[in-house]
């Protein structure tokens, strides 16, 4: 770069445009590269600025020096004609393989410079990053606040399935965080072990197992099950109506059992914040914390929390086959072992009595 500031532009082999990024630094850029940006092009043509150091064009505030370099790389490549489609594709794909933060900055910068092709390229890359993620994951990636209320979250058309077990874990997480916050306030660093969740599930299980003998099904009438077309189907529902009455004697008396209601209390949600796990693993005595908690914790403490929650989840999941055994044995049925050998194939031994 020339050391002297020239007021008059001498005709040279290469012309330059002078640009100033938001930090104040001034850059000298080859003309054809700089003019690739519509915003710069416009400035040059309309105001005549940019021909020297003293009249450098101020770039929009989104363009810091690091991003500026990236943009120049892009322009330098793309303003040369004759690249094959394959070359362009390879360059573009490589170009957006940068960390998300940089990608965001690049997108904003390209937008402010009106570089539409680059805006499209980076926007598509950001879209791909967003696709397939949960809201929480997206928040984490872009460091966004979790500022929607429970009501607002409920209101959108909910396409996302919500594993009740995950919700329970979130509640535990929240409770744990709150506990830790409390302790932090008291300046007590020692963290207590989370009480082991070895609660008996007998309350819930007993009524599932208990009176089941009498629900041995109504052997429904042998009617045709499915017809694919309405014109073919006879009215099966009217045919079945008579047969159904045969089953009425075999109703479980457990309906009036007190356990029933208790179990329902445990599983039904009173309002959106008191969701519980409907399945086998928790007794009605388990308490849940209302409300969400601020996430204002040390990353190290958070890590520990995460580990505990993970442990808990693993215990939940590993218990499952055993509990299935309990349930099945309660049904007076020989268990069918499904053994998995090394390559993942299974052998089924059916020996039902």
């Amino acid at each position, binding site marked *: 770069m020339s050391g002297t500031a020239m007021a008059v532009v001498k005709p040279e082999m290469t012309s330059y445009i002078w640009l100033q990024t938001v930090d104040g630094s001034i850059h000298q850029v080859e003309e054809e590269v700089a003019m690739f940006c519509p915003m710069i092009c416009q400035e040059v043509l309309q105001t005549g600025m940019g021909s020297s150091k003293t009249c450098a064009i101020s770039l929009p505030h989104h363009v810091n020096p690091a991003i500026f370099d990236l943009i120049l790389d892009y322009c330098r490549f793309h303003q040369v004609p004759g690249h094959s489609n394959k070359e362009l594709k390879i360059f573009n794909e490589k170009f957006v393989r940068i960390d998300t933060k940089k990608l965001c900055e690049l997108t904003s910068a390209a937008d402010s410079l009106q570089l539409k092709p680059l805006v499209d390229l980076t926007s598509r890359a950001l879209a791909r990053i967003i696709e397939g993620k949960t809201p929480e994951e*997206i928040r984490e990636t872009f460091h*966004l606040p979790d500022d929607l209320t429970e009501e607002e979250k409920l*209101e959108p058309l909910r396409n996302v399935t919500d594993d009740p077990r995950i919700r329970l874990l979130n509640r535990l997480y929240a409770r744990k965080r709150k506990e830790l916050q409390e302790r932090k306030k008291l300046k007590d660093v020692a963290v207590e072990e989370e009480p082991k969740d070895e609660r008996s599930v007998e309350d819930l299980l007993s009524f599932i197992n208990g009176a089941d003998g009498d629900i041995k*099904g109504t052997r429904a009438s042998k009617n045709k*099950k499915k017809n694919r077309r309405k014109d073919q189907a006879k009215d099966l529902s009217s045919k079945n109506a008579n047969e*159904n009455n045969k089953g009425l004697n075999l*109703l479980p008396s457990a309906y009036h059992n007190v356990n029933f209601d208790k179990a329902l209390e445990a599983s039904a949600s009173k309002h959106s914040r008191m969701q519980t796990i*409907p*399945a086998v693993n928790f007794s009605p005595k388990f308490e849940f914390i209302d409300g969400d908690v601020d996430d204002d914790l040390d990353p190290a403490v958070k890590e520990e929390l995460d580990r505990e929650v993970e442990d808990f989840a693993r215990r939940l999941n590993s218990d499952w086959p055993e509990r299935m055994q309990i349930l099945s044995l309660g049904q007076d049925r020989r268990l069918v072992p499904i053994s998995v050998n090394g390559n993942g194939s299974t052998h089924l031994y059916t020996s039902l009595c």
Partner: protein
Amino acid sequence: MRPKLAYSFPEEVLEHVFSFIECDKDRGSISLVCKSWYEIERWCRRRVFVGNCYAVSPATVVNRFPKVRSITIKGKPHFADFNLVPEGWGAYVGPWIKAMAAAYPWLQEIRLKRMVVTDECLELIAKSFKNFGVLVLTSCEGFTTDGLAAIAAHCRNLRELELRESEVEDICGHWLSHFPDSYTSLVSLNISCLGNEVNLSALERLVSRCPNLQTLRLNRAVPLDRLANLLRGAPQLVELGTGAYTSEMRPEVFSNLAEAFAGCRQLKSLSGFWDVLPSYLPAVYPICSNLTSLNMSYATIQSPDLIKLVSQCENLQRLWVLDYIEDAGLEVIAASCKDLRELRVFPSDPFGLEPNVALTEQGLVSVSEGCSKLQSVLYFCRQMSNVALLTIARNRPNMTRFRLCIIEPQVPDYLTQDPLDAGFGAIVEHCKDLRRLSLSGLLTDRVFEYIGTYGKKLEMLSVAFAGDSDLGLHHVLSGCDNLRKLEIRDCPFGDKALLANAAKLETMRSLWMSSCLVSYGACKLLGQKMPMLNVEVIDERGPPDSRPDNSPVEKLYIYRTVSGPRLDMPGYVWRMEDDSALRIS
């Protein structure tokens, strides 16, 4: 609080990023990220999918998404296809059309499934949306050809008009003539479900003046000798549904037809084929190798003719056929159609007591062996074995939709007389991406244990005449993490499993149970405890209050909703509410 400083985008930039994200699930995720994203997303949402028309009110949708251009709405539960939902149940699209007519003048696309659409609705659509382009009515009812005439007359920019398996009162075949002569934008026309003749010359003129026509599905009443003319008017066709495929055997009709077919070099999909006269089939042979989709499910021709046809379709990806194809035919398919992804075999005589064709489980096993891309199956047959199911499962771990319909209920493994638990267990265990499953045959609670354990990606499950106790239902509700739709009929499932898993129901779109053992009392309890669910009892015997609380209800339909109770229920539907379960009628 946020550990790091959030990067803030200009709104237009974020909107631009969102414009590349189309999938409903992702749009949903975006809207749940934070307040500002919610706001931006709702203003740039162009397509909305409403899986259950009663899950949300038209007003809510319209208020939240002001700039929608395309909407898809589904109404009645799936079991309505099997006549399990009585007349007048609901799913009226009227309130939706009215709300959208006021809010979305630029609406372009409406797709409805299992909804009641009246002529007034169609007229309102025709007059309210200036740029209206796509109307797809699948399994809908309630309208006549007069409504269609209104659409034809007013929608200058109509591109697609599809009546798939809808019940249309066919008043007059001249509705087609309501398309003005200046109208040329048709891309897709499906009138296959219309009962009566349409004005054939109007149809011919329409077809020949629309250069972008790609899909034409005719109804049965279009005679074969007019087909050649139609084809000549649209050689660019990609998808064709013939009318009745029969005529007096005349050489000139045949050669005319063969020539016309040969001229359609883009044809990839064929359907129709009512009343097939086998000697006319060779007319399509020249284009067989281009076909990716073939629907012969109305063609009552025998195995040899079917084999001759299908064996030439080496690029076939989708095949729908009657069980006349038989095991022998399926073996040929397994050898010839290596690209097959979807197979549906329908029963030619479902009500007969004895098998009328040589189609057994072996046919499906052959296809599962020979067609490595097979992922979607609907198969009607009369016998099945655990070892066959295990073989299929091992052959095709890439299966995503598996619907097996053994015609007689509760038929055991014909080789061992065992229940088919192990076989279906193998299916769910091996096919890790299985999203849809229909069960049949003799099944105990064990099969549900397998499904609950392995069916982690399962979204829709259909069950009939299966299980022994509540444990079966409990396994499914507690184990299937991604379950969205569960439909059950004639199973001994009662209150316990349902109430124990009540919270699960809020994570699903809907649950249907008919001819089971769920008591009225349990329904009331559910309705009281779960404000986000609509618990609807369908009982044509009269008010459930007139029977004891422990008496089982006929039918139960539970679905999650943010719009509260629906107000358009017929007399035989009772909603279980907070305070009183009595309807004021």
